[in-house]
């Protein structure tokens, strides 16, 4: 059904692109059609970067320039075939996209935006001042246009060509964004830490998004240079970068957003060309008020109206699932023999200035056990968890997990090896459905590659189907099946905590780190949590639990580790810990009556936790 619908849509688009240039032989209108196509092409890639991955770039005129000057120089200086030069422009632009993405490793937000501005300015300076090569304002004439046989494209053929490219970009990027890549981009956008924790390389996906946007911008530049048969430094301005960004922001976060944005803004641009002083003024006003009036852009406005017209339609594109027939079993969880060392950490230290949250801590986690990590507030429990999961690098010490030294590994690699975690302060992908949150956890287990997803190959579709089933199974296990299609943000707090555990389980971990999973839960939910933890243990997954609720710790733990002021002060079976004088001292202070300590530990510490974490 949806296949048929898609086929009809594509056919209609092809018919429209074919007929549009035939409807007129007015050169001005044809040029406008062409410009809409070029602007759409640039914006389609930038949409992935800006709207989906959340990286604001203000330097894409620089990448446009890279594409334009690549074809210009290759065809005029080296007499390359125009088609070959056109393809080369995408490749060279991709290389520059990689360069502009390098700072993205270290800076984010506004500083990254500034860096991209600087990149755009540097390119602008190079092409305008390095006259020997780029001919500055005077420009390069005689850029060889694309041709059929020996006939250069005429105005109509240019529109067809750019329309075809636009359609290809729309279909491939649309297919990419629908699958695991789209979820990964959105995860990076929503929470970089959470993305890393489910095995998504944040840096890798930022680089990929930059490269995708660079390729489409590069092709746009090449098209302009070849259609005009001329390029000069006057084309490459900061205003062009702003114009591209305006198209994607104004269009909104949707695969149709850039199309709407490109049509409206290109027409506006052509219309205002008669009054150049008002042209930029209008852009300024659009930037200033556009996001205020339409936070989700034109496509958000349109889909908002559409939603009102047909109430109850399903936005997420997935409809009812049959309940999965089988219960979930992790992919890589082997039934290992119990009591083997799964993870061992030696002599871990971490200091922030004078605060030393981790001081010479060593620990050993055994397969099949539930380990608990307890200690008063500020004892360094979460820091230890962050070190183990690779989010914080220790100053010294080493960690061996599954017989592999992982001390220096990035968090996503550790996750892929089989170590999952949840967060004390929830880090869900709040704008995604519950199902998509869990499917994001399956990301690293889905083996389809970039091309399979771009071209929507059968392999990627099959993987997506399998992911749906697995995610459903996990949701059944967690008692969330009926909320699968709800937005994660719309769930009550206790359920959000469970979604986070479900997402962590989806990575098929050998070891699951739970950071205060009961924080903020009511007694009923706390009881359900105990059942969940026990169920997880039955799946063969080893658990390390940080918890302040002593009733949970005492109920489920096989082994308890106690931290105080960054040091391990005791470990052992729960009943041993209960009677350990050092532990009692750490929680309750010196000079206490040891006789009634059994009681006070469980209650006193729960109060302690409640008091400071509220």
């Amino acid at each position: 059904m949806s296949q048929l619908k898609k086929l009809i849509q594509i056919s209609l688009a092809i018919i429209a692109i074919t007929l549009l240039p035939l409807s007129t032989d007015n050169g001005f209108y044809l040029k406008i059609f062409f410009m809409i196509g070029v602007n759409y092409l640039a914006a389609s890639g930038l949409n992935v970067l800006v709207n989906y991955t959340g990286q604001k770039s203000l330097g894409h005129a620089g990448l446009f320039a890279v594409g334009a000057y690549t074809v210009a120089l290759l065809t005029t200086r080296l007499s390359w075939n125009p088609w070959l030069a056109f393809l080369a422009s995408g490749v060279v632009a991709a290389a520059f996209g990689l360069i502009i993405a390098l700072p993205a490793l270290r800076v984010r937000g506004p500083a990254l935006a500034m860096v991209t501005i600087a990149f755009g300015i540097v390119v602008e300076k190079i092409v305008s001042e390095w006259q020997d090569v780029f001919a500055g304002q005077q420009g390069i004439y005689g850029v060889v246009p694309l041709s059929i046989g020996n006939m250069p494209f005429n105005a109509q053929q240019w529109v067809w060509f750019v329309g075809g490219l636009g359609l290809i970009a729309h279909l491939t990027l649309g297919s990419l964004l629908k699958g695991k890549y789209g979820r990964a981009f959105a995860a990076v956008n929503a929470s970089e830490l959470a993305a890393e924790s489910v095995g998504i390389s944040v840096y890798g996906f930022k680089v990929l998004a930059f490269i995708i946007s660079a390729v489409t911008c590069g092709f746009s530049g090449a098209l302009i240079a070849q259609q005009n048969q001329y390029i000069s430094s006057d084309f490459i301005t900061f205003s062009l970068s702003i114009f591209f960004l305006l198209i994607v922001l104004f269009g909104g976060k949707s695969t149709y957003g850039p199309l709407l944005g490109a049509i409206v803004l290109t027409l506006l641009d052509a219309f205002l060309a008669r009054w150049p002083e008002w042209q930029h003024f209008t852009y300024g006003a659009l930037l200033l008020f556009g996001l205020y009036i339409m936070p989700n852009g034109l496509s958000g406005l349109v889909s908002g109206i559409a939603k009102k017209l047909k109430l109850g339609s399903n936005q997420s594109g997935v409809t009812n699932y049959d309940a999965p027939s089988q219960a979930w079993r992790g992919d890589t969880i082997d039934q290992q023999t119990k009591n083997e060392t799964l993870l061992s950490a030696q002599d871990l230290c971490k200091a922030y200035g004078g605060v030393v949250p981790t001081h010479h801590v060593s620990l050993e986690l055994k397969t099949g056990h539930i380990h608990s990590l307890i200690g008063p507030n500020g004892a360094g429990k979460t820091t230890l968890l962050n070190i183990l999961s690779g989010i914080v690098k220790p100053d010294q010490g080493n960690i061996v997990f599954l017989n592999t030294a992982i001390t220096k590994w990035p968090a996503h690699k550790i996750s892929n090896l089989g170590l999952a975690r949840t967060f004390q302060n929830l880090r869900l992908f709040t704008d995604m459905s519950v199902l998509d949150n869990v499917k994001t956890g399956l990301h690293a287990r889905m083996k389809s590659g970039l091309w399979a997803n771009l071209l929507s190959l059968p392999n990627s579709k099959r993987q997506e189907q399998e992911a749906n089933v697995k995610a459903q199974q996990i949701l059944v296990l967690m008692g969330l099946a009926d909320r699968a299609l709800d937005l994660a943000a719309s769930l009550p707090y206790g359920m959000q905590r469970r979604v986070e555990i479900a997402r962590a389980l989806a990575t098929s971990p050998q070891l699951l780190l739970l950071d205060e999973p009961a924080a903020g839960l009511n007694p009923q939910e706390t009881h359900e949590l105990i059942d969940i933890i026990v169920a997880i243990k039955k799946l063969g997954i080893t658990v390390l639990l940080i918890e302040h609720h002593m009733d949970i710790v005492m109920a489920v733990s096989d082994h308890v580790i106690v931290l105080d002021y960054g040091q391990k002060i005791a470990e052992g079976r729960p009943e041993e810990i209960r009677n350990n004088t050092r532990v009692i001292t750490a929680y309750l202070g010196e000079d206490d009556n040891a006789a009634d300590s059994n009681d006070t530990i469980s209650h006193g510490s729960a109060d302690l936790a409640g008091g400071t974490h509220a």
Partner: protein
Amino acid sequence: MVALLQAVFSGLALGGIYGLVALGFSITHSTTKTFNFGQGEFLAAGALIGVSVVLMMSGHPITAALNPGDVTPLRYGIAVIVSFAVLGLFGAILYFTAVRPFIGLSGLAWVMSTIGFGIIIQNTALALWGPTPIVMGSPVGNDVIRIAGAGILPQEILVLFASIITMVLLDIVMRKTRFGKAVRAVAHSRNAAILMGINVPAIVVIAFVMSSGLAGMAGILVVPITTASVFMGLSIALKAFSAAILGGLNNPRGCILGAFLLGLMEALIGLWHAELREISIFLVIILVLVFKPEGLLGQRQVEKV
């Protein structure tokens, strides 16, 4: 050697300009985590307004050319004050129209809206003054002063002094006065500051007024060295931001250090290969971001997990 000394002086003067603008970035960033991406346009507007004030006081229309005798120290002084004041007002308008609606929202809507505000300012300026650069002499004369053989423009010395005095004053205000302590409290924790009875909205508006005012002042100060034009701002603002990153965006003293380092670097590289000035500065910034993203004097922000 003589050329080197000359370059050091013009580098320091440039550094003073960058420092003023960088402080403007720092003060709004530390209080609101936002800053004005249209700062360059603000700087240009400050320059053009200042020049117009001098013109009007000499009895010319604002698009006329200046005679050498028109720029007296008194008129210039008034021009600096007017630039600061008018741009300060712009800063307040900017805050209410472009920043406040988006504070605390995810995404970088405020980046877009401040750029939009800047574009509007730029186009208004273009309509009023046109695209041609306006030349204005220095109030302290245009004869080159010789120090140890190096020729130095009097305006460079004026800029250096004016910017250092402003920076020192600002430093004292931030460290010694109630207002300064309030600003630092807001920078540290907005919520805690509210609970302590600090009028946070007022502090934030004042931060934007000061930030934009400083940009306007920097604009009129730099005019006698370069010229005044609608398009003069972008590259100065970018380098000022680079300076702030280099020294540490949240540390005002770091920003000043970064600004002087950057000014010197630019002047010295200009001595060697003028066309490599900008490229090398931005490359340095990218390197700084890779190896010490918090800047030379900045403190690394630790995200609580």
